């Protein structure tokens, strides 16, 4: 009998194939972000044994569960401080936080700004779909004005966060925004961010057709991609302050807004303590962790 051998999925080395199918809806943008992350890590020929991923709660919070890395699915909003502890206790690790806009900017907002201020050596990837997906379509800190959600049935009248501006104002050394339509640019930014010591932040505007598009009568996920195609404006080095997504179905300004040098928390701490304590100082790090 002839058997047809199914070719291996090209992402197999990066994914927990024994967990497929994943929970994400058809046309959800999170899968594209995972694909881009895999491509970035592959291009960088990173030793994946030294990469750990930390997620919070929500649709994007499930990323940690599907990638074949040391991966941590933590509590709502606490991915960044969890990642901070992981990084500082085992500095050889490259740590990627992948979570949603609600997780990182609402319930976890305080951790986000302080990790950026400290220049903690983390790469934070925020999948921004303008809405709470996992819980059924509620208001997010990023929901554009007038957009409907299940908790703003008459439209949203709050001002959304400009996450790129927030990150840059708090001291992030690398800030970029792309949509899931901009895969090549996104992979490029991920590679730059992963190689950049310090707090790097990438916001990825991503479609949620099941909730955001449906509640706002925007069509399918494909229609949202068309919207990105027609309304995304690439403006590298634009002042983050002016790069907000401030209008419902308005323009989405994309690009790399910040790429600066600043010592990380670990660098500053090691330098400061060495200067103060001299030979008495016993540094922690260089891949050393306590057995």
């Amino acid at each position: 009998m002839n058997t047809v051998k199914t070719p291996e999925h090209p992402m197999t080395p990066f994914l927990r194939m024994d967990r497929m199918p994943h929970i994400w809806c058809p046309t959800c943008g999170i899968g594209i972000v995972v694909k881009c992350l895999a491509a970035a890590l592959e291009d960088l020929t990173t030793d994946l044994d030294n990469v750990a991923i930390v997620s919070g709660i929500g649709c994007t919070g499930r990323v940690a569960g599907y990638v074949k890395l040391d991966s941590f699915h933590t509590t709502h909003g606490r991915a960044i401080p969890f990642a901070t502890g992981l990084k500082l206790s085992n500095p050889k690790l490259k740590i990627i936080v992948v979570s949603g806009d609600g997780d990182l900017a609402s319930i976890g907002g305080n951790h986000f700004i302080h990790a950026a201020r400290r220049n903690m050596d983390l790469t934070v990837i925020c999948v921004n779909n303008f809405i709470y997906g996992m819980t059924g379509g509620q208001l997010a800190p990023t929901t554009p004005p007038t957009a409907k959600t299940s908790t703003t049935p008459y439209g949203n009248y709050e001002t959304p966060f400009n996450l790129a501006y927030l990150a840059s104002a708090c001291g992030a050394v690398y800030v970029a925004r792309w949509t899931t339509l901009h895969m090549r640019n996104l992979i490029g930014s991920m590679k730059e961010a992963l190689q950049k010591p310090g707090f790097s932040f990438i916001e990825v505007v991503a479609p949620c057709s099941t909730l955001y598009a449906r509640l706002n009568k925007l069509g399918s996920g494909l229609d949202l991609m068309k919207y990105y195609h027609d309304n995304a404006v690439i403006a590298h080095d634009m002042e983050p302050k002016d790069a907000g997504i401030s209008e419902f179905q308005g323009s989405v300004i994309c690009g790399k807004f910040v790429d600066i040098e600043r010592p990380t928390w670990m660098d500053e701490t090691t330098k400061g303590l060495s200067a103060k304590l001299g030979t008495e100082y016993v540094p922690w790090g260089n891949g050393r962790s306590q057995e």
Partner: protein
Amino acid sequence: MQLKTVDRMTLADPKGVLTGSHYLDGDFSCAEGALAAGCRFFAGYPITPSTEIAERFAQRIPRIGGVFIQMEDELASIAAVIGAVWGGAKAMTVSSGPGISLMMENIGLAAMMEAPCVIVNVQRGGPSTGLPTMVGQADMMQARWGSHGDYQIIALSPDSPQECFDLTIEAFNYSEQYRVPVMLMMDECVGHMYERVTIPHAEDIRVRSRRYTTLPPGEYLPYRAGEDMVPDMVKAGDGYRFHITGLTHDERGYPAMTEECHDQLVRRLVDKIRKNAQQIVHVEEENLEDADVVVMAYGISSRVARLAIQEARKLGIKAGLLRLIVCWPFPEHIIRELSARVKGFVVPEINYGQMVLEVERCAAGRAKTILVPHMGGNVHDPKDIVNAIVEAAK
């Protein structure tokens, strides 16, 4: 005081051991205990009356080798501690009532992920902001039940600066043995009390090392437990590519939203402590042989109770002390045995009745149980305890 845990022990790393005789308060002594136990990661947020532990750790750790980080809040502190555990460090955080309340969700995460760590609660008067600088013991039930869902933790309660040192080491050892968050339930009096603290030589301190797997990647399953119900660990960066989640998970660590899987997991999380309770329980007994009345106390209240017991003995009442060193799991079997032969229990505690509920439950009507409450802000007047002993002896 003899350390109870004995197997799989190594000697303390001398770098962290400040051998000698010192005049320390309980907070400082706790920090020294953590360093002696091998704690090399501390994330915390200032709060009275626990802050001095953080200050001492921050001062000492750069000369030992480790990390101190003051986080933005207590939510971040406990999250960083759990992250640090998965990075391979022994880690702790400290706080008091309001901060501990904020930590509760992630204390549940530590229980669910089975991340060994130590959380110190230097108790002050509550509820809410309460009495920031004054003593309380009203977080005892919170320590046991504070996070949502079914889980069990271990809690210890020192009565002196010396015990703050000893029991901090014990807390780390228990956390590694059972892979649970362990809470050290200090109180403001013990935390701020200065006494002689003797720190032994490193070779006289036994610390429990982490139970890492000996299996290679591919064969190892993060939540496959043996007979003792405690799975072996790995840490990030060692090539295991493991997944850890706060969701109900199977042996692989993968989310598994089934009744069966949840049943297995929750039973194991609880039973690894519940079924080992007799090995973990640790009490001090004084004059219980002939006692008609047992005063059960812990922390600073046990020191006041001693005086009351002496007074009662002068009055001809045979009273004795049962001091909880381990509060959780509760020494159920000891109370049951005592309740069959004593007239009554007296429970002085700086709250309006918490551990007394456990005594009542275990005594089950076989002996009187009298609460001597104190709402906080000070220790008991020994006379109140004496009066209760007299009442219990009737």
